[in-house]
């Protein structure tokens, strides 16, 4: 079943109160952050704290992702050495600019996994595109490895790299957003939109989330738990989408019992991708597949 990633909540890696409560905020995914949310002189403290948190805290159904520091910083390798053996659901890798760089990261991760007798196909990678060079290379980055199952845009760093103002309407990074979505769709992986920094502007957040969804993002990073419900509402399937998905799953179950493999609904053939889409819609709507 495709993972829900409507919301990915950043939690500062040096904040024990927020880390230990991560599971109750209701986000689909938690991003335990060792990078931008942690001061330079606290990188060691955050790394050790997040390591202990991963070992002991139950985050219930949330996907757990750790954003490490870039491997070209003094902190990145140490982060990977501590975190990779614990195999969170995913590692988020910041400021990825070239497929060669991503390839190097994957080699390092696999070397650590080999050292600990771990498989190479359990933990996935989320790649952050935060520079113009990264945007230019995003298609080659996205297709490099099956371990990459999400691409995300880092809007703040991208506007800084482009030396432009981060406008409310997002016009400066609109092309980047669309290129990232296209690269993600071409490789059938998730595209996660950047954060909305004004935590007091609910209407602005809703408008931006609606735009993100319309252009193809499958979810959005958030910096405050208050933002979660709004984004979940935006990504809630419509009644029509739910009705259609329900029909498809019911037809699937009925035909399966009768031993019929190929069938149609409303005159359209139902194949594996259609089934997967229907199952995902029901999951977003929080309807139990087994109850149909």
């Amino acid at each position, binding site marked *: 079943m495709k993972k829900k990633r409507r919301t990915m909540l950043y939690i500062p890696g040096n904040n*024990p*109160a927020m880390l*230990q409560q991560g599971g109750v905020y209701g986000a689909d995914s938690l991003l335990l952050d060792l990078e931008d949310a942690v001061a330079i002189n606290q990188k060691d403290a955050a790394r*050790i*704290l997040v390591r*202990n948190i991963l*070992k002991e805290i139950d985050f219930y159904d949330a996907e757990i992702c750790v954003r490490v520091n870039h491997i070209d910083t003094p902190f990145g390798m140490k982060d990977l050495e501590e975190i990779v053996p614990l195999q969170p659901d995913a590692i988020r890798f910041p400021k990825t600019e070239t497929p060669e760089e991503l390839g190097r990261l994957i080699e390092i991760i696999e070397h650590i996994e080999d050292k600990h007798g771990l498989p190479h196909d359990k933990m996935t990678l989320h790649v952050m595109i935060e520079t113009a060079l990264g945007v230019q290379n995003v298609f080659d980055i996205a297709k490099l490895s099956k371990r990459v199952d999400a691409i995300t845009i880092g809007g703040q760093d991208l506007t800084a790299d482009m030396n432009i103002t981060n406008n409310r309407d997002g016009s400066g990074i609109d092309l980047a957003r669309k290129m990232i979505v296209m690269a993600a769709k071409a490789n059938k992986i998730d595209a996660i939109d950047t954060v909305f920094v004004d935590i007091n502007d609910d209407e602005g957040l809703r408008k931006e989330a609606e735009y993100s969804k319309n252009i193809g993002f499958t979810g959005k990073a958030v910096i405050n738990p208050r933002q979660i419900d709004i984004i979940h509402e935006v990504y809630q399937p419509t009644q029509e989408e739910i009705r259609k998905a329900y029909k498809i799953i019911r037809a699937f179950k009925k035909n399966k019992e009768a031993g019929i493999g190929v069938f149609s609904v409303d005159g359209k053939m139902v194949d594996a991708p259609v089934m997967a889409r229907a199952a995902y819609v029901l999951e977003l709507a929080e309807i139990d597949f087994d109850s149909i």
Partner: protein
Amino acid sequence: MEIIKKAQAGSFESSDILILIEPLDKKTGRKIEIDSTVMKEYGDSIKKLINNCLDTYQVQNIHLIAKDKGALDLTISARLETALKRASQQ
């Protein structure tokens, strides 16, 4: 592990613990001072955890001050480990 200088880790925020350490002369032993918002309920277990961590790192002659604001054991261990590593670096 040899502690060669003063160091600290953590904070006095809720659910955290601030740990300050400094080396003492050989054979002085451990001097541990704990102040906690849940001293009555958890003072003894915090002291036991700290001593167990110091045993793990084979640290003996140390002055340790812990100011706890309701940290979980995993946070206490993390902050102590961080402080010890900082105190052992040149």
